[in-house]
Every structure is written in structure tokens, then in C-alpha cells.
């Protein structure tokens, strides 16, 4: 009996350590984004972010509409974290914003086979030195 309890404990310990315990149900620990709130209600974003991203993707790709609300680039810019040395951590790295939920729900995310996983860095400094006008225009671009 004691052995059985021990085995069961060993089975559940790692999952408990990885997830926060909320009311007896383990849930993923999600890193908070910058700013006060997301571009839409949290409940809405949880349920429909993929639909909004997919819709935005077609509009941006085919029509050149570059609104920022549901732009993947903006999601990453806001939700990416930096490590101890100030370098951005890939958004799909274990425990990061995208990965924490997607690993928990076992839903594979294909976005990052092509899309950048880190927000753009140092671009502005480089661009403004070479092309001052473009540096002004650059921030308006969204993916």
C-alpha cells in the first residue's frame, strides 16, 4: 500500500510542479503581457484568438490591411519576455506565453515555422542611422 501511494505521488508531482494549483485543477501558468489589458476581453481572446489571427492574416497578406489589433507581430511584441541578460525569449519556448497554454491543451501551433518568435530588436537604431525617413515609417508596419 505504501509503495502504491509513493508511485502515485511520483506520478503527480511533476504535473503539480509545472502547473499552478487552482481549486484542485492544474492550470497553465501564463506570463502577463505588457500594459493594462489585452486588445480584447480575456475570455474572448482565449476562445477566438486563432480565428482573429487567421482572419487578420488573410487581410494583411492579400489586401495589405495592417491594422494592429489582431496582428501576430503585435501579440508577440506585447507578450514576449526577456531573460536575465535582457535578450527576448522566443514566445514558443517552454513556459512562455504561447507555449504554456498550447502545451497544456496539447494543441500544436504552426505559426512559428515561418513567423518570428521574438519582437524586433535594435532595428530602429540601425534604420534611423541609415534611413531616417524609414525609421519614422517603420513602427506603423504590422504583420
Amino acid at each position, binding site marked *: 500500500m505504501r509503495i502504491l501511494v509513493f508511485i502515485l505521488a511520483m506520478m503527480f508531482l511533476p504535473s503539480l510542479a509545472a502547473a499552478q494549483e487552482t481549486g484542485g485543477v492544474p492550470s497553465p501558468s501564463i506570463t502577463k503581457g505588457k500594459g493594462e489589458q489585452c486588445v480584447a476581453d480575456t475570455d474572448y481572446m482565449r476562445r477566438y484568438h486563432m480565428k482573429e489571427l487567421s482572419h487578420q492574416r488573410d487581410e494583411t*497578406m492579400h489586401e495589405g490591411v495592417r491594422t494592429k489589433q489582431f496582428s501576430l507581430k503585435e501579440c508577440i511584441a506585447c507578450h514576449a519576455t526577456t531573460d536575465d541578460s535582457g535578450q527576448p525569449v522566443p514566445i514558443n519556448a517552454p513556459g512562455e506565453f504561447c507555449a504554456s497554454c498550447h502545451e497544456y491543451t496539447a494543441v500544436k501551433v504552426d505559426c512559428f515555422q515561418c513567423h518570428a518568435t521574438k519582437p*524586433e530588436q535594435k532595428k*530602429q537604431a540601425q534604420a534611423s542611422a541609415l534611413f531616417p525617413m524609414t525609421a519614422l*515609417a517603420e*513602427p506603423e508596419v504590422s504583420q
Partner: protein
Amino acid sequence: MNGSGFDFNRRRFLGAAAAAAGVTLAPGVTLYGVGQAQARGLDEPASGEVRWGMLIDINQCTTDCTECVSACATENGLTGHGRPATDAQWIRKVSVRDPKNGVEKSLPVMCQHCAEPPCVDVCPTGASFRRADGIVLVDKHICIGCRYCMMACPYKARSFVHEDLTDQKPHAPRGKGTVESCTFCVHRVDAGGKPACVEACGATGHGAMTFGDLNDPDSEISRRVAQYATGQIRADLGVDPGVRYQNL
């Protein structure tokens, strides 16, 4: 950390200012227009009244200069594996030599952004498409990597990504198993800017490349096309490229 926080706010502010300008200003009046380029509002789709094009003056292009090629690689994050046969190449320098008198010229060749693009004709999934403003792109979300477009292109303008990629540029997503080519730096054009190659060429002082709206009679490119004899590569194919060459 404070620095990046400030930066973020500044970006948001500029974005909001640009969006407001797009709504309130009359068409053609731009807040941050560069040269002849017009900036649309962020929520405005690309207009069919615009035909983006490029004019390349070959007399201004020197054989040893590859600034346009390296600017393209930097801008779009094109990294190679030291395998020229398969590495991505969105723009390349081509040397032409007249065997009769030995005169050699060098010119950049990239996607010619045809009005009747053969790559779009052959694409089985609709991934290869021509945007309303004349920019020919690959929607990599629906590209299956069959490479028919690469064979159909008379300008050898497209590349296939053979290997896994990391650290792509946020504005230029690229991935294994899809075809890609020059986008006229569509992310810059949508923001009212010029392609990276054109800017780099201007920065060298050669100024061989002019980018603009071929449909706007007042744009610099249209004035030049009206003034000088310009031509298209393989005009006989009838695909009406948006890239024109002067003194070829």
C-alpha cells in the same frame, strides 16, 4: 528595460498618429510620405488604382556594386548555407556582355511583378497571387511547395526554402517548404516607404533604382518612363513586368 518601455510607447504613439492622419487627410496628402510613395491608412486595402513599379537605369549601376543585394538580405533576413544553387535569392546581379564589342553591363534582376504573372497562372492552390496594387506575392499559408511557379517564372526570380529557419524578421516570415521571392518590401511600401534595395542604391550615390506608382503620371518613375526610352526584360512574352530598365 526602461528604454524598451519608452520605445514601445513611442511606437504606439506614432502608429496612432499615422492612423489618424490616414483617416483625416485627403488622399495623396501624407504625413510621412517618402519621395513619391503614398501612405495608406492601416485599415485601407491596397488600391487597384496604384501600380507599383521600378525603373533601373543600367548606366548608373556598376559591376562591382552589390549594395542592393546585401540590403535585401539584411532587410528580409535572408541567410544562406554557403550553397549558392539552393540558397534563397530575391535579387541578384546579372552581367550581360555584348560579344561584338565586349561591352559589359551589370544589372539587378528580381521578381518583375508582372501584370500577367505566369507564376500566378500555374499555382495550383492560389498561394501565388497578384495584389491589387501590382505586387506579386506568395501566401505561404497556402503554398504547398510544389515549385511550379519557379519553373513558370521566365526571370528565375523565385527561391524555395529547403531547410528549417529560425530568427526570421518579424515583417518577413519565411519557412521551410514554401516558395518565396522579392516582395518589393511590401511591409515598407504599405507604410509609405521604398524597397530596401532602392534605398541602398540611393545611399551609395548611384541612384540607379527608382520606385513608385506607374499609374500616377506625376510620380518620378512615370515622368522618367515618359521621358526616356525604357524597356522590360523579355517584353515579347507579354507578361508586362512592373520592373523597367533604362539603357539596356
